[in-house]
């Protein structure tokens, strides 16, 4: 492959300057997508800008219960933050379904988001959790919902010269629980045929007061299914409510047929998986309200 220039700046501002001066440059986080694409010839950036030497871009900061995950934080490093594992286990589990241990030691949260694969495992979990991200660029910084970043397979809404600096998660709400499940034909080293991220809040009597349900690999981007969430809110997650949720999930699917699964299979599985994921999130939310009682 033609060799790009290599930069390893120490600050976010330097990255902004490098990107402004070279529109064909690409930022490098974990490299598990970028380097593969460079080697296959799919992309030929003029320069690669390594983000991992920038303080604060690797690792998780906990600030008054909120979490700031540096965009260059490796998936496995999320497990080192006990508060994050306790608050958002679904997000940590989703990131740690990606690839192998070797890949997860490199693959990052920012990269999984900005590679913009419809099947990215961490993205539905982040969207369900209500995550936002901080974007830096020539016009300064802005904070946008994670769900606003993917624009289609391999495409993001980032403007030229912009990159994701960190991902932010709110404190876990009282009575809250989250989960992520994906369907693949084996147990490891595969790409989601369907993914479902769920975040729920249950009141003291078990009534669902808030829900977010996000699906992966069933549309060009992650889908936040508001009708599915609405089917659960106000219910005690009884079978009738779960049936309405499943129906809304199926209605939101716009999948493709490919070697991993047919559109019909994906649509049917999305409902099955969403139901299983809701059940895990419910157990977590209940254990939360029990431990507080």
């Amino acid at each position: 492959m033609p060799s790009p220039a290599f930069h390893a700046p120490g600050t976010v501002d330097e990255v902004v300057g490098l990107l402004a001066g070279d529109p064909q440059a690409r930022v490098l986080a974990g490299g598990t997508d970028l380097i593969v694409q460079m080697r296959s010839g799919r992309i030929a950036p003029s320069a690669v800008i390594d983000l991992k030497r920038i303080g604060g871009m690797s690792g998780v900061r906990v600030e008054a219960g909120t979490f700031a995950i540096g965009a260059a934080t490796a998936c496995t490093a999320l497990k080192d933050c006990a508060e994050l594992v306790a608050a958002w286990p679904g997000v940590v589990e989703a990131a740690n379904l990606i690839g192998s241990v070797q890949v997860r030691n490199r693959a990052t949260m920012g990269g999984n988001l900005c590679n913009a694969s419809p099947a990215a495992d961490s993205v539905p979990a982040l969207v369900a959790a209500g995550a936002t991200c901080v974007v830096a660029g020539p016009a300064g910084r802005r904070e946008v919902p994670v769900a606003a970043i993917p624009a289609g397979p391999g495409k993001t809404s980032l403007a030229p010269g912009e990159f994701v600096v960190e991902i932010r998660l709110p404190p876990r709400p009282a009575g809250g629980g989250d989960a992520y499940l994906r369907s693949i034909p084996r147990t490891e080293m595969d790409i989601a045929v369907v993914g479902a991220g769920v975040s729920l809040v249950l009141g003291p009597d078990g009534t669902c007061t808030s829900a977010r349900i996000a699906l992966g690999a069933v549309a060009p981007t992650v889908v936040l299914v508001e009708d599915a969430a609405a089917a659960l809110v106000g219910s005690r997650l009884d079978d009738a409510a779960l049936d309405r949720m499943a129906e809304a999930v199926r209605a939101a699917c716009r999948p493709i047929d490919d070697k991993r699964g047919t559109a019909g299979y994906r649509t049917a599985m999305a409902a099955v998986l969403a139901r299983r994921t809701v059940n895990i999130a419910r157990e977590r939310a209940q254990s939360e309200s029990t431990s507080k009682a």
Partner: protein
Amino acid sequence: MSKLLVSTTVNGDAQEFLCDPGATLLEALREQLGLTGSKEGCGSGDCGACTVVLDGNMVCSCLVLAAEAEGRQVATIEGVAEGSMLHPVQQKFLEHGALQCGFCTPGFIVAAKALLDHNPAPSESEVRYWLAGNLCRCTGYDKIVRAVMDAAAQLRQERMPA
């Protein structure tokens, strides 16, 4: 494009090499430093034949740019044995016949050692999940898993206070 000078530590020794900015760590190890134990199977992070340990974490060296190794610690298959003394993982691979063609073996040994370095008593299931990113087309994996379990047992015994 001019070459980059990279200073790094490989298997405990300070090393310097020149590389293209787009070269991978695997290419630098094999072509600049002559450490040909790490293999390129797929070049896309699927097979694990190029597994090395970078600052304590095992990674696919085909998915690391050589320039990223500046100032880092790299451990390769060449550093696993101590002189002519094989590491227990290597010895057990021999005893159990956990290889045929051998192409995947360096990656498996680096990965298995990385597991046992931080988890001295893995379950068989933990071994299989840990090694999911290492592909072997010869053995069917059973002998590899048995060798790793046996190496773990031996290492636990060696570490027991006398």
